[in-house]
């Protein structure tokens, strides 16, 4: 960021680092979940009562691995995390298929939906934080727009004679007023 105070600069850096490490976490999570979906889809379908959907779960696994790799390999993972938000929506839509009352595993589906909901919130938060950090790093550079043609040094106090023109008439410099009791105490 251009020219701002060192504290503000550090705060920006902390924010960006936080968002990036959160994205990395989500990336690893994506790959882990994806591998499980790819190689053991029946664990998911049995738990959720979604029989014969193994192929669908495998394809979701591929999607998860793809986004996970994307997140981990990209310098600016924001669009990949937004991709995860989209994937979360797809997962929730798929889970709604299992919400039928005749599904004996319905309670598990509800549990899974709550978990996906939580992950969605994390993904959303992370994506927004990444975007906010990008907004900081891509903000236009106004650090030379001083407004002072003669430079900052020459401008400090250049109008000092105007500083007190609106001083209320009876407000004088406090140090000049010494209460009598105080004066005799010294």
């Amino acid at each position, binding site marked *: 960021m251009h020219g*701002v105070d060192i504290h503000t600069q550090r705060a920006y850096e902390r924010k960006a680092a936080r968002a990036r490490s959160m994205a990395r976490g989500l990336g690893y999570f994506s790959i882990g979940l994806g591998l499980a979906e790819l190689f053991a889809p029946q664990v998911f379908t049995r738990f959720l009562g979604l029989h014969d959907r193994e192929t669908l779960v495998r394809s979701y696994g591929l999607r998860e691995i793809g986004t996970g790799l994307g997140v981990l390999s990209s310098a600016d993972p924001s669009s990949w995390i937004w991709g995860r938000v989209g994937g979360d929506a797809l997962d929730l839509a798929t889970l709604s298929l299992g919400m039928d009352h005749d599904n004996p595993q319905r309670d598990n589906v509800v549990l899974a939906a709550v978990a996906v909901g939580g992950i969605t919130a994390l993904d959303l938060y992370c994506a927004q934080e990444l975007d906010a950090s990008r907004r900081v790093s891509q903000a236009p550079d106004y650090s030379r727009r001083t*407004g*002072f043609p003669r430079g900052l040094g020459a401008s400090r106090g250049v109008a000092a004679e105007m500083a007190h023109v609106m001083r209320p008439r009876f*407000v004088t410099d406090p140090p000049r007023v010494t209460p009598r009791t105080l004066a005799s105490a010294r």
Partner: protein
Amino acid sequence: MKALRWHGKHDIRCDSVPDPEIEHPRDAIIKVTSCAICGSDLHLYDGFMPGMKSGDIIGHEFMGEVMEVGSENRKLKVGDRVVVPFTIICGECDQCRRSNFSVCERTNRNKKMGDTAFGHTTAGLFGYTHLTGGYPGGQAEFVRVPYADVAPVKIPNGLTDEQVLFLGDILPTGWQAAVQCDIEPTDTVAIWGAGPVGQFAIRSAIMLGARQVVAIDNVPERLSMAAASGAITINFDEESVIERLNELTGGKGPEKCIDAVGMEAHATATLDSMYDRAKQAVMLETDRPHVLREIFYVCRPAGTVSVPGVYGGLLDKMPFGMAMNKGLTIRMGQTHVNRWTDDLLERIQQGQIDPSFVITHTARLEDGPALYETFKHKHDGCIKVVLKP
């Protein structure tokens, strides 16, 4: 002619309307060469100011060339180049004679309404609600300027529109905000809001000799522009405003605090601003005084609070006891523009300050409605918009 008209919340259109005419012998008609969108216009845009009517021509920052003058106007000649202050003043009433121009007693032609709303009327303003006269504004090709033999500032050759346009509002507004602080060379001046008014308040505080100037906002490029003139920055999304201000002042708080945000202060992470948003939504209060609360809290006892930010009506949960017990001085108001214009024009001529630094967008009048959006949402690094009719 073409003019930007207010048709309701978030509804501004570039319409064809009849040209203005001289209505009084002291009037003048100005052909606008440059006009700007002000943060105050956003309060109208967002529907927070009472007293607007659909079809009102808006805009109160404008300059141009004199096209026509009334028979009794001895100050202006056809062809003069002038900046027109947003406060309309008679120059003769009790308040004008004391230079309290923004509360001129005569120029609000809806005086009754002003008396009812404020107890006593304030001055007429261009393009700014019927409570202050409902005068057609300056985001237009032509404007009728009432009492045109008093306020308009003649511009000498050799200065561009961009250098002098802001003499009509935001430059003297930032300046008055800082002058009202009665700045001592030992003072820390903290300024909430790094919008155009805040930017000029920062430059003014530097020129008036403050030891330390601190700018508070959450828009990175606005903070970058603040830092350009030597201000220390605080991003309220990322840093604790109270903690940083106390750190910067040896734990004592800034002597002088300026609210250059006004009634639409953003909800920060704190609970009280959420509370304000909610109440504003159901019309239980009109303004969100988050910044003022923060200022009352952090300001050094016996310090001064200067409020150029505009408030429209009722403020809720103001810690007034805090302000009273700390002995704070609160100074505020619409700017007495003409009190400062001669001096500031001279400073521009001498090269002490060049106000054009704040302009980020220049466009045609027709693009005005779109630029209200850009300015409001701070898209595309927008800080100040100038329109060329």
